[in-house]
């Protein structure tokens, strides 16, 4: 038999093991290839290059995927080779030369690698168009994904992965030289020492649980937690991280062991049916894999937090677009020629009917009020505000059928509009006073709103003050008063043509530079505010705002999701491999059980139960970690809709569950076979 044939036969006989390895590698290659393909796709890049550094993001993701893939492949490879030490020993005894064995292992790994590479690329070619569509959809781009096959991407993928396979193959090939024959036979016989628990187990168990809970406690009420650390955010964050991570390791290494041992003390349940087997085996497996399980818990927590966090930011940004741009088109009426042309464009466009129209005027003032940031020192701060009249404000709200109307009690009351306000981080400014700098006039803040009346970029992205019409008349701004018109149209999501037409008018008639800096009448200078660049847009379409924002955040979301996917698959494969190799070691035990009268159904049940626990424990801990992290993130980002977060995290948990089912099935198949040894 030639070496090649032998290698082929080996792969075939160990097929079930290889399937997982093979699948995971192909998957990584497929994802990597897709990212490289997209990074090489001219049409895609050209379409998205306006605001997002798409090619950089894609290349970066590619590198990250590569890092995962390499680590995973080295891990999986080591794992396989450990299982096969005996085989090497056997070949050796049968009189194969070391060089031959070495060549055999080299060849075998290369065969698997090349096949995985080929199928990964083929799948990648098929799926990269789909991935591109998803990306464009997330970026809310209306570019149509053209499918272009990139030879460049193929070469890049082949070269990199062939190098990796060469590396692992050489590792395998050198194995036979690195061990003595006797070591090769001892590979799997690690002492199955049973965990004894003493004082330290209890101590560390309680400590671990305590540390995790402490981390949760701090994260749950973060602002309060920060107070414990003398308002040092960074310190508080570090303590949460360390406490949770160390807590997790202790939880798996000590707490769970103690917990199961305690459960065993209850003989009524422990000495009942298969519980004896299930519980003791579980103890055994957890003890043996405690650190791996803890690592998986932390990795899955990280993955879920990253993907969930990206979803939160995505939802936040999406909400923020709605909060800051409440009308579809807003334009400056100070240039009558441009304004009338824009009005005509909108009126004459057959695809979009006007559904609402309003006018809004504002003046800009400098004013002082108390800083209400929680944990801040509450000092008076000076800033610019745009002031609008109560009737303009209420009209814009009414026509738009959204937002919060106001009924000011008297001429000294004002409504503060701040799109960054959240209960979590600010004390309510209600009842505080605000003093205009030049006139020394003082208003009481009657209420607070978080939605811009028409759009925030047309009012310098500043906070706004709504005052009574009488008060408004009296206010002297530091700039001339501006008048804007705001329009809602039908099919606003598809108004690319209209948005472009408007942009063209503005560029020609108003200015090349569409952001106009604040002009202070008092000093005749151009100024910037403490909180923003204090430029005002002469016109805005919600369509363009969305385009710009989603190009960036859609990309972030996409990258997070795909990195998470690779991560989750790698994690799932690792537990799966570990479990299945243990199954191999446990065949004997289950054979005993069957001989002494345990039936197949009972064995299947205990296998599913044990595997279920091994899979569930880390993910439950990971999910709990992630929930606290995401709650914190959600509160930072003004509690956006969490539907997307649920969907994203749900998908990951689903993938994990699929791995569980496959593992339990395979496990059962391995241990629940024939009783007769052959």
């Amino acid at each position, binding site marked *: 038999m030639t070496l090649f044939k032998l290698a082929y036969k080996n792969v075939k006989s160990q097929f079930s093991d290889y399937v997982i390895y093979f699948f995971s590698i192909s998957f990584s290659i497929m994802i990597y290839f897709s990212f490289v393909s997209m990074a090489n796709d001219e049409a895609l890049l050209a379409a998205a290059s306006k605001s997002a550094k798409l090619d950089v993001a894609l290349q970066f993701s590619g590198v990250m995927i590569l890092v995962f893939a390499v680590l995973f492949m080295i891990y999986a490879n080591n794992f396989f080779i450990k299982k096969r030490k005996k085989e090497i020993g056997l070949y050796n005894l049968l009189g194969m030369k070391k060089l031959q064995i070495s060549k055999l292992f080299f060849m075998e790994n290369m065969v698997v690698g090349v096949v995985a590479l080929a199928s990964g690329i083929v799948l990648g070619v098929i799926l990269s168009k789909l991935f591109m569509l998803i990306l464009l959809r997330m970026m809310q781009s209306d570019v149509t994904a053209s499918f272009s096959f990139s030879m460049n991407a193929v070469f890049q993928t082949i070269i990199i992965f062939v190098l990796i396979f060469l590396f692992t193959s050489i590792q395998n090939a050198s194995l036979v030289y690195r061990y003595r024959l006797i070591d090769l036979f001892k590979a799997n016989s690690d002492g199955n020492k049973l965990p004894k628990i003493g004082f330290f187990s209890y101590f560390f168990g309680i400590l671990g649980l305590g540390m995790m809970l402490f981390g949760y406690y701090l994260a749950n009420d973060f602002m309060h937690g920060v107070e414990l650390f003398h308002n040092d955010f960074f310190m508080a964050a570090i303590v949460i991280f360390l406490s949770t991570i160390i807590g997790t390791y202790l939880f798996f290494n000590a707490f769970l062991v103690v917990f199961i041992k305690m459960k065993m003390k209850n003989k009524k349940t422990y000495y009942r049916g298969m519980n004896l087997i299930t519980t003791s085996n579980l103890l055994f497996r957890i003890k043996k894999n405690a650190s791996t399980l803890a690592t998986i818990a932390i990795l899955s927590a990280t993955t879920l937090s990253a993907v969930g966090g990206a979803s939160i930011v995505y939802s936040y940004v999406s909400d923020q677009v709605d909060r800051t741009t409440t009308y579809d088109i807003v334009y400056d009426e100070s240039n009558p020629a441009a304004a009338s042309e824009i009005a005509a464009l909108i009126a004459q466009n057959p695809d979009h009917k006007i559904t609402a129209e309003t006018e809004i005027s504002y003046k800009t003032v400098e004013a002082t009020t108390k800083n209400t940031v929680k944990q801040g020192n509450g000092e008076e701060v000076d800033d610019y505000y745009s002031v609008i009249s109560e009737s303009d404000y209420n009209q814009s709200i009414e026509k738009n059928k959204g937002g919060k109307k106001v009924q000011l009690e008297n001429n000294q009351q004002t409504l503060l509009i701040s799109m960054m306000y959240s209960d979590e981080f600010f004390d309510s400014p209600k009842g505080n006073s605000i003093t205009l700098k030049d006139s020394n006039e003082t208003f009481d803040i009657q209420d607070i709103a978080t939605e811009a009346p028409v759009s925030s970029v047309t009012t310098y992205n500043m906070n706004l003050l709504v005052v009574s019409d009488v008060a408004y008349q009296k206010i002297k701004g530091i700039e001339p008063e501006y008048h804007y018109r705001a329009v809602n149209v039908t099919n606003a999501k598809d108004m690319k043509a209209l948005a472009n037409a408007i942009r063209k008018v503005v560029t020609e008639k108003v200015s090349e530079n569409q952001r106009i800096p604040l002009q202070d009448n008092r000093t005749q200078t151009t100024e910037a505010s403490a909180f923003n660049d204090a430029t005002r847009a002469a016109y805005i379409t919600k369509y363009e705002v969305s385009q710009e924002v989603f190009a960036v955040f859609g990309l972030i979301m996409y990258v997070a999701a795909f990195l998470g996917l690779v991560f989750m698959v790698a994690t799932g494969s690792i537990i799966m491999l570990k479990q299945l190799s243990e199954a191999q070691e446990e065949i004997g035990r289950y054979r005993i059980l069957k001989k002494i009268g345990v*039936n197949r159904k009972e064995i299947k049940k205990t296998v599913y139960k044990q595997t279920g626990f091994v899979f569930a424990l880390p993910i439950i801990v990971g999910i709990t970690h992630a929930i606290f992290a995401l709650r914190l993130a959600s509160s930072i980002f003004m509690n956006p809709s969490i539907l997307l977060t649920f969907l994203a995290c749900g998908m990951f948990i689903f993938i994990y569950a699929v791995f569980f089912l496959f593992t339990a099935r395979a496990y059962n198949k391995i241990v629940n076979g024939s009783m007769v040894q052959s």
Partner: protein
Amino acid sequence: MTNLVEVNHLKKTYGKKGNLYTALENISFTIEQGEFIGIMGPSGAGKTTLLNILSTIDKPTSGDIKIGGADVTTMKDAALSTFRRHELGFIFQDFNLMDSLTVKENILLPLALDKQPVSDMEGRVLYVTKILGIDQLLKKYPNEISIGQKQRVSAARAMITKPQLIVADEPTGSLDSKSATELLQYLTEINTKEQATILMVTHDAFSASYCNRILFIKDGVLFSEIRRTGTRKEFFQKIIDMQATIGGGVSHDVI
């Protein structure tokens, strides 16, 4: 005496058509209640195969077996599991203890599987471990005790359910001669005290000399049978003589 086990025209073949290997051919015999019966024969004769089939671990190609009147060859898988749990006790050459369980848990496992009351289980464990002299080891794990002790734990587990039949495949095979002698004495004690019927496969004449009766098989067929009449020493000599007649594969220097 009543017949506990009846074996009729048992046949077992391995492999597929064209490459058939007959491991057992036309085996018939009976075992009486309370007997300590041995099965001997050269290596590869089919002893383990016979024992596996008798203990319902493997299925015969043809023929039937009745244990306590029940035909085990026609029973379904689930019923067989219950049957094994209640009516059979196993002692294996390599002990087959669960290393994740303590000695006590290993022994009471069959009772626990039957969900018996805890106090009954513990009483029974104490009783059998006293007989076998391992009552001091209950809290230990299998890897903390000697192999002689392991085999006695295995015996304790086999007898804890008061099975109709205890089957033992080369139970002394892994033991040194001192532990082997001890185990055989204990088995004899179980046999007499508990009236347990024991079927023991061995290729070792010394071990076999503890039995009341021995069946010899060779190349898958029942070759002959001898019964103990006089002392154990005399019986041992008879066994040696029979082995010489059969020839092949069995060493004489085991005592």
